């Protein structure tokens, strides 16, 4: 901590420029990486024309965007429309200021930390600055003066603030262990064990929350194309749109970097390389962990379909938040008991596993109860049995639940002996189980 705030002016400038360039390059790289990996997952090749392995594809896309017309809709609020992308991208850049890339090194004879700066309230600063980015989204949607962007912006902000609660709660247990909000000290506190291992529930909650925070698949509801066109940036074009795109990918890098710092031991090496814990090795381990998390983002996008909005809010408010609160209480109790009476490691692990198991079982039971209630409510309704008209209005339609299929006449006589027509009898009266209806249909076709 004592090295921070001691840098000479050119060192500060150098580090700031490096962080800035790092984020821009990471954005260009991540877009390419995502398209290539998703391409592979879908048995395609992905962009491979511009530059070696298509690496310059995102740069070419950026240049193309710059050459497009900069549209300001008539209905837009001109000033806010102009300011919103700036308000969105600047905080995104500023988050990485407190993320440690490495330990103490010497640059041109000056001893310094591989971290732009550190604050006693480091993580709080990250959360605060990241929240400012939400204003960019809300104002972009509002100032467009259009329906889809407004709805997209509302969804986006509701989503970000919902998952911010879960994210904030997942950090509490980390602060319990590290006793500090400073990022470099949190990394220091993980010398013996990563917090992802010591606090698995916190880590899981954070992993879900970070995907929700960044509006990425499967939580990319603000840009659900089928419902909202492009979300809050529908009316944006040219470089203003590019800035929103930049902000989205920078935020991805930010939350991954924060996950690395808070839970995965930051710049510290992992198992086979435990000796290489000095100086310039730090950034390498940091980058490996960062890329692994970015790969998880891409992986999720290639694997999972988009959630429905109510499912998404339910996951955030009804699962992540109560689980985090119970987990915090549990960690606090264990830590106090441990410091008062001294518990063996196996007792703590057993306790942790049992509480994790209990939480999972409780959530399943709650889910099953809710589903049973729902089904009971559905079953209570009396389904009126109606005659089914397979060509209602001239179009062939499938039967609805509760509709009885008509008994085919005439078709049956072809090739079927009257005695052997076991499956061809008319469906039992009143029985409208969909499976039976389907079986009957198949029999009829045979």
């Amino acid at each position, binding site marked *: 901590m004592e090295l921070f705030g001691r840098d000479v002016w050119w060192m500060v400038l150098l580090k700031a420029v490096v962080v800035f360039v790092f984020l821009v390059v990471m954005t260009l790289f991540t877009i390419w990486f995502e398209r290539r990996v998703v391409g592979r997952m879908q048995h395609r090749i992905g962009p491979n024309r511009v530059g070696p392995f298509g690496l310059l594809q995102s740069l070419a896309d950026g240049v193309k965007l710059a*050459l497009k*017309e*900069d549209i300001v809709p008539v209905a837009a609020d001109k000033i806010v429309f102009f300011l919103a992308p700036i308000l969105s991208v600047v905080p995104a850049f*500023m988050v990485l*200021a407190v993320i440690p890339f490495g330990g103490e090194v010497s640059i041109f004879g000056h001893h310094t930390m591989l971290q732009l700066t550190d604050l006693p309230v480091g993580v709080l600063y990250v959360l605060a600055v990241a929240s400012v980015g939400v204003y960019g989204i809300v104002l972009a949607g509002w100032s467009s003066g259009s329906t889809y962007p407004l709805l997209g912006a509302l969804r986006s902000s509701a989503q970000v603030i919902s998952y911010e*609660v879960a994210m904030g709660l997942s950090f509490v247990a980390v*602060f*319990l262990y590290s006793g500090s909000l400073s990022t470099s000290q949190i990394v220091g506190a993980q010398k013996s064990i990563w917090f992802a291992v010591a606090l698995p529930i916190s880590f899981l909650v954070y992993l879900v929350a970070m995907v929700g925070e960044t509006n990425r698949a499967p939580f990319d509801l603000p840009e659900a194309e089928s419902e909202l*066109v492009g979300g809050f940036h529908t009316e944006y074009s040219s*470089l203003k749109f590019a800035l929103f795109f930049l902000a989205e990918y920078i935020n991805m890098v930010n939350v991954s970097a924060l996950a690395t710092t808070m839970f995965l031991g930051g710049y510290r090496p992992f198992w086979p390389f435990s000796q290489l814990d000095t100086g310039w090795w730090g950034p390498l381990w940091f980058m490996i962990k960062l890329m692994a998390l970015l790969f998880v983002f891409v992986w999720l996008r290639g694997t999972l379909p988009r959630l429905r909005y109510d499912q998404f809010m339910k996951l955030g408010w009804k699962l992540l938040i109560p689980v985090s609160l119970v987990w915090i209480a549990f960690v606090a109790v264990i830590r106090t008991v441990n410091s008062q009476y001294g518990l063996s490691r196996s007792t703590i692990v057993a306790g942790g596993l049992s509480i994790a198991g209990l939480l999972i079982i409780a959530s399943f039971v709650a889910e099953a109860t809710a589903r049973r209630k729902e089904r009971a409510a559905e079953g209570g309704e009396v389904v009126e049995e109606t005659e089914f008209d397979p060509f209602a209005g001239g179009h062939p339609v499938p039967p609805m639940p509760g509709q009885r299929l008509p008994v085919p006449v005439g078709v049956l006589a072809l090739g079927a002996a009257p005695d052997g027509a076991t499956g061809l009898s008319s469906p039992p009266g009143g029985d409208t189980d969909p499976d039976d209806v389907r079986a009957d249909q198949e029999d009829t076709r045979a």
Partner: protein
Amino acid sequence: MNIWAPILVLGGIALAFALVSVVAGSFTGPRRYNRARLDSYECGIEPTPQPAGGGRFPIKYYVTAMLFIVFDIEIVFLYPWAVTFDALKIFGLVEMLLFIATVFIAYTYVWRRGGLDWD
């Protein structure tokens, strides 16, 4: 140098970059007037007339925002407690468990009243 100064430097670089990009966008691209293009985008149909002030949207968003404030304040209390946890000993633990329980009661109430259900 002050520990906050580097943050301002980074913010300054980012701000300069963003400003230059936004301003440059109107110079690098073409500019051809087209009334339909400057209309609000609604997949090709005539845009819905917007009432002054942006119109109305579902009340659920307000409820979400208010719940967010409740929990965010809880987090604000939890952070300093977590940082000084070891110094507070049993007293801190009991106090905070009571606090979490209190918020949990409010949370259960909101849940039971359907405040967390979307639709």
